[in-house]
Each structure stands twice: as C-alpha cells, then as structure tokens.
C-alpha cells in the first residue's frame, strides 16, 4: 500500500517538481506571522512561566533559582490538595454526565419528534449564557432561604434540606449542577449533528436484521460516531481544566476552602499574595494536566488518520 503511494511522488520529484519545503510557498509565507505568534506567544510564554516557576519571584519576576522549593510548598498546601480533589470530582462527574445527558437528549430529538427545533433551542439556550451569569442564577436557585429549599419548605415540607452551596462536603456538586446545565446543550447539538450524519441505510439494515433500537445505538451508532465523541471529549475536558468563573460566581471558593479550584489558587497567589513563583508552579501543574489530556487526543486523531 505505502509502496504504491510513494512511487508516483518519487517520479514527480525527479521530474523537477518543487520539494516539500517550497511547495505552496505563498501560503506558507502567509501563515508565517501566525506560526511566529504561536511560537513566541504560546510556546515562548509557556517556557518562560515554567522557568520562573523554579525561582523565588515575588511581586516582580527575578532570576533567583531555588530548585523545586515552590513545588514542594505547593503539594504541601492543603488548599492546593483540596483544589485538585475538587477538580477531579468535578472533572469525572462532569465528563460522564455531560456525555450521557448530551447523547441521550440528542438521541431523543433524533427520533423525529414534534417541535424538535423548539426543544433544541431550549436545551442549547444555557450555553448562550456566560459562566458568571450561570453561576449567579444557580447561586440564587440553590440559596437555602430563597431557592429550591425555601420553596419546598413553604409548601409545607418543613424538614426538607437542600443547600449544597453551604455544605462543605457536597459544595462541588452544587457547582457541578450548574456546569452540566450550561454545557450539556452544546454537546447535545454536536451529537445531534453526528447522528444526522449516520446513513439512513444503516438504520434500514439493522431493522432488516431485527436489531432493537437501543441495541442499534449501543453497538452500531456509537462506535460509528467515534470522531464526534472525541471532539466532545476535548471540549468538555478543556472546560473542566479552566473551571474558574463558575466557582467565583457561585461560592468564591467557600464555604472555607471547600470549593477551591486550581485556577483560583494560581490567581490568588500570583496577584493577591504577590508570590509569582508559587503561582507559576501551580499553573505549570495545570499545564501538565492539560498535556495529559492532549496526548490521548493527539494519539486518537493520529491513529484515526493512519487507518483511514
């Protein structure tokens, strides 16, 4: 297979066709500014941050290297440990629930129901709101005096208790509710587009073979939608890592430190505590977690291409 692919390219090269570097030269020149920006701004600043995370920089950066002292302090801080564990709980739950809810809603809409457009708009609407607005709305809904708990109690169920934002043990799930409410609409739309891309003949074939609808989804449709799932996975994962504004709007990290997330740690230590080194160390750890997510993604993408 690869032999067949290569031969014409080789003969073409021998005829004096431009080599790989000079092919499409004008488009490469046009892309140069963006490539430089990406290299200098993204890669350059990332490396700068990592280098300075090994210094004892305070309000202003300075080159006094102290080894891994900042990282030792970071992993010895109970606030950082709480932040990481919150992010893990939020991350796992949000990933699973958003995918499940998004796919289920999409599959239901795909059953050619009436008012599909209306439902789609309703489900997608929360995505049009910013995290700050989402956070404030859910802060009110979950407020024990004015929100759900207050309403149910006013109906006569006096012992009803639902105040996730004021209970340190479950506060992160109060934030999770808002996150899922906001994010699952978009996932639903992407899934719906994926479902619409499935050939009608597949459905006809499974019907001829007498496979049930549920089983068709699980064993035929979902495996066919792998690229769509990968896209959704990356979107959700990116949203999880950068979780910040939702927490600020809903609880600002409280009660106590129980709903802290890594991004808040980075901000507080860089600007409030005037300790850049500590903030850089924390943001480098965040970068590491992004890399851990990106590598499987690149692997999946690459694998998909080479097979196709």
């Amino acid at each position, binding site marked *: 297979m690869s032999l067949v692919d290569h031969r014409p390219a080789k003969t073409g090269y021998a005829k004096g066709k431009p080599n790989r570097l000079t092919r499409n030269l004008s488009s490469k020149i046009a892309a140069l500014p963006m490539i430089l920006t990406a290299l200098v701004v993204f890669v350059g600043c990332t490396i700068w941050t990592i280098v300075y995370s090994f210094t004892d920089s*305070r*309000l*202003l950066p300075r080159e006094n290297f102290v080894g891994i002292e900042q990282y030792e*302090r970071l992993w010895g*801080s*109970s*606030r950082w440990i709480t932040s990481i564990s919150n992010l893990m709980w939020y991350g796992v739950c949000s990933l699973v629930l958003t995918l499940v809810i998004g796919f289920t809603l999409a599959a239901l809409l795909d059953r050619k129901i009436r008012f599909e457009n209306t439902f789609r708009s309703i489900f997608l609407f929360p995505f049009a709101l910013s995290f700050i607005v989402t956070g404030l709305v859910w802060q009110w809904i979950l407020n*024990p005096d004015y929100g759900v708990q207050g309403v149910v109690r006013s109906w006569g169920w006096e012992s009803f208790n639902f105040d996730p934002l*004021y209970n*340190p043990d479950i506060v992160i799930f109060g934030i999770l509710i808002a996150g899922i409410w906001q994010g699952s609409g978009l996932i639903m739309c992407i899934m719906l587009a994926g479902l619409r891309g499935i050939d009608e003949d597949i459905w006809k074939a499974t019907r001829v073979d007498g496979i049930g609808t549920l089983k068709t989804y699980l064993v035929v449709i979902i495996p066919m939608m792998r690229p769509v799932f990968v896209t959704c996975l990356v979107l959700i994962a990116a949203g999880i890592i950068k979780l910040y504004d939702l927490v600020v709007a809903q609880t*600002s*990290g*409280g*009660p*106590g*430190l*129980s709903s802290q997330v890594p991004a808040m740690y980075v*901000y*507080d*230590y860089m*600007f*409030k*505590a*005037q*300790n850049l080194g*500590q903030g850089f160390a924390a943001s480098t750890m965040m970068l590491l977690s992004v890399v851990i997510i990106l590598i499987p993604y690149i692997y999946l993408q690459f694998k998909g291409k080479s097979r196709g």
Partner: protein
Amino acid sequence: MSKVLKSLLVGTALTCASAASAVELEVTHWWTSGGEAAAVTKFAEAWNATGNTWLDGAIAGSGGTARPIIISRILGGDPMAATQLNHGRQSEELIEAGLMLDLTDVAEAGGWKNIVNPSSLLDSCTLDGKIYCVPVNIHSAQWLWLSHAAYEKAGVAVPADWNEFVASAPALEAAGVLPLAMGQQGWQQNLAFGAITIAVAGLDTWRDVTVNKNADTARGPEYAAVFEAVAAARELARGSNVQDWNQATGMVINGEAGAQLMGDWAQGEFSVAGQVEGTDYSCLPGLGLNEILDTGGDAFYFPVNDDPEITAAQKELAALLISPEVQVSFNLAKGSLPVRGDIDMAAANGCMQKGLAILADGGILPSGDMSLSADTQTQIEDLMAEFWAGDMAASDAQAAYADIIASAD
C-alpha cells in the same frame, strides 16, 4: 434666546479655559460601603475646591480584589495618578522597582515628621530614608461591636468584655439571636483571629510571634489558649451565612446578631444607619480585655508619571490629604482616627474618643500588614477560612499556623 445662547457659550469657554489649567487626577480606592463612600467624598470635595478635578476610580470588593487590579495597572504601564493601599509591605517591591513617586520634599515642607502620630505610620511609608506615601487615617482591628437591641431581646446586660460576651451567648441563642456575626471571607476571619489573639495571649506573646516570627512561641501554651478561644468563637458564629463585612455589621445594627468582631471602620456603618453609641450599640476596643490597638491604616501612593504637570498636582494632592481640615472631615465620616496628633477631634463620638485616648496613652502596636508579607498573610487567611468553615481541631490549626510562621519571611 440669543442671550441664553451667548451665556452658554461664555460658560463653555470658561470651562474650557479652567480645564486647561486644572489637572484631572484619577484616584483609585476600594472605599465602597456607605460610610466609606461618604468619607471619600470629603477628599473629592476638598480637591475639587482647589480647582482641580478628582476622577473617582472606586473598585468594588475588598482590598483583596482591588489590590491586584491596582498593582497590575501600575506594572502594566497604565498608572493612575494616586491610589489607596494599606501601608506596609504590600508596596515594598513597587517602590524598589522605582514605580512610586518620591514625596520626601513634600513631607519636609509639611513637617510630617513632627505631626504624624504615631510615628510608625510614617516609618512604614519610608524606604531608605525617602518617603513614598501619605498616611491618611489610622485603623485598628481589635474592636467588638455589640447590639443593644439583641441584648434587650435576650434580657441580659450588655457585656463589658469578651469573656462576658462568651458567657452571655447561650442567652442570646435562646432568644433566637445569632451570638456572633461573621462574614465568610478569609480576611475577616483572620481579623477576628488577630483580635482574639491580642486579647487572650497579650501583647508580648503576639509580638514574639508576629514581629519576631518565633514559631516555638506559636506552638506554645499561650497560643493553644488562643486557638481554643477562636474555636469557641467559631461555634458562636455558626449559621452566619453573610459574605461582606458590612452585611455582618448590618446584622448587628438590626439586632439579628449580638456582636461582631470588626475594625473601627464598622463605626461608619452605624453612623449611616443613624445609631447612637451607648444607646443603640457599644464598642469595646481590645475586646475590653487588653486596651491596645494596632495602627494599620490606609495610605495614598502616587505612581511615577512622565507628565510634569501631573507630578506637580500629585504632590499638591499629597499635601492636601494630610492637611488639618481634610483630616478632620474625612476621619469623622469614616470613623477612623486621624494621623495627626495636633488637631481638634472634639466632634468625634464616644467610640472614636476611646480610640483617641488609647492612642494618646501609647497603647499601640504595629499592624500585621507591616510585619508580615502578603504571601504569609494569604497563607494565614487560607488557614483561617478553612478553620472557621469546617471542623478543624484547634491543635491542628495551631500546628499549621506555627508552620506558616516558621516559613515566613
């Protein structure tokens, strides 16, 4: 009609003319609660009266929110003309980097060395013999505010010190009153911790830990007693769900809560609500146990500016902020103490008179802001936020606190 038009034109021309000579200075600060806003207006009025313009840059939220914004604007090359900061170590590096205007000539002309009392205020504006900020007020954190209405409801006498307050708490709870109002923010919990420390452990122990950073003392029995007392206060504040300090003060004003541990700036909220000291509320400096006040406070810094006209105006404003009339009107509105020992504060109410008397007796200590870096303060605030919201044992909190002190710089 044409007459009106003509006068309008003349008016516009006049405004243009005066705008050319007057300088507009943007001043950033985080004074946004009722009493604070009333006080900052006094500055603005005094400055506008000189023919210049005060461009108010209030930043909502506490200092923790505002400081990063202010500092990043200075570092980012977009400095305001003047800004509030708490004097102390917060601005140390900004001064070292040469970003703040040297005010030494203004200070010498005004004889600040002789008039600023206590002199530690000016010392914390000084770096290498040069003065970089104008102290405008003295704030102390060690105050207990008590609601007379709440104690009437409970049917017990208003306590005279912290121990009596703790003893009266069950009666308050029985009457459905929350004993201690506490905003759920790290700095307020840290403030309460500091106030209880000075009241319970005394000045020498406090100084050994905070100024000398002696971690062994922080592990010792005096601080064990402090953490026990804070743990007891934590139980008294259970069920206090408010966030901002003025909301907590509001609970004391309404009689929903018995007391609040808050700095003397709470005074402004009581004045705005029209309450009278002695009949509606009481104040206990040093929690009634140890009549000592710290001398933190606010100061104005003037970031370096290329425009000589603005630099001249900055110096003019610096001199104005510390002038006697402005000091009196500003501090009366804010409920804080003036930085000058030579002015007449007869108009001040009972709480401020108590504070002035303590100040005159020399019952003062440097504020935590002056001894601890922002980094250490943030770590302690984090610890306090965790301690007050959860069930952390007093001994665990003490150990964690001692570790922070041991690594403090």
